[in-house]
């Protein structure tokens, strides 16, 4: 493994999260289009997705989306400002600070729904 620094990991994570989000989106479109076969099919599928495995998957997708969004802002700053590249490392740490601030309350709320059975 090439011993790159923050920038390399920011890039790899961005790629992986991007592909994962794309896959989720396609699954989601398939899920929604199952309604074409009528309400029985659609409701059966939704009931099947009550399974906590899907719930956990959703939390994972949310975690990846959040990283992709925040790092995307970092990339915009690097692309469009003269100083973004110089502070890319600090910006990446900033991404993680925001990630914890925004993400943790979000993940805990979601996990509460998955396991607490709250609707």
């Amino acid at each position, binding site marked *: *493994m*090439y*011993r*790159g*620094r*923050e*920038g*390399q990991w*920011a*890039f*790899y994570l*961005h*790629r992986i999260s991007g592909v994962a989000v794309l896959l989720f989106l396609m699954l989601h479109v398939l899920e929604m289009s199952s309604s074409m076969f009528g309400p029985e099919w659609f409701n059966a599928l939704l009931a099947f997705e009550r399974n906590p495995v899907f719930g956990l998957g959703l939390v994972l997708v949310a975690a990846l989306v959040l990283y992709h969004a925040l790092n995307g802002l970092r*990339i915009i700053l*690097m*692309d*469009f400002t003269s100083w*973004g*590249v*110089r502070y*890319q490392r600090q910006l990446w740490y900033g991404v993680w600070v925001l990630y914890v601030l925004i993400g943790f309350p979000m993940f805990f709320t979601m996990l509460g729904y998955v396991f607490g059975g709250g609707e």
Partner: protein
Amino acid sequence: MQVTLKILRYNPEKDLRPHWESYKLEAEPMDRVLDLLHKVKWEQDGTLAFRKSCGHGICGSDAMLINGRNRLACKTLVRDLGTDVIEVEPIRGLPVEKDLVVDMEPFFKAYRAVKPWLINDDPPPQRERLQSPEERARFDEGTKCILCAACTTSCPVFWVNGTYIGPAAVVQAHRFIFDSRDQGAHERFPVLGSTGGVWRCRTAYNCTEACPREIPVTQLIQEVKRAIMFGEF
């Protein structure tokens, strides 16, 4: 001190794929990795192949992957690696010819593609094409490039993409695009703006970390992107 030098060796006439060989040797903390390679070649195994010329970080022939990062063997002290196990591999993304020697042709092909020379059809003035110190400073960083390929072969996109011209070629393009005497931006644009051009850069920063000349490579690439985007060509 005693160090273990591991080298990823490959002999195209005998080996199917590269393999690691270990060499034990006495080294001083102030020895360069290049000195260790010489010791191996002169005292243990004369068949070891690697490139070097100046030995002083200016010819750009000895970029290698040393302990996980691209560096010049002649500019890397044993002391600075902070370990007595030193691993040396050829730079990645270019075909290995033998041991640490790679085929640099794809790298130089990309270099030539950006037309790294002054393009100006105006008749030359009596004495010189004058330039202010500020105009000269605008492209100063790119002039320090020694074409070692440490940047290009550290780039994750270059490893897998196959068409990306790589950071070094963009640095060279930047050197001329931002030169007030140059008029060739339009000729360079087709290459820089093509699918293998600057837009393949995804700002992973390995190039900037690897450059032994401390050129802010990613910064220069981003400036070229903005120049294309905002129509400075």
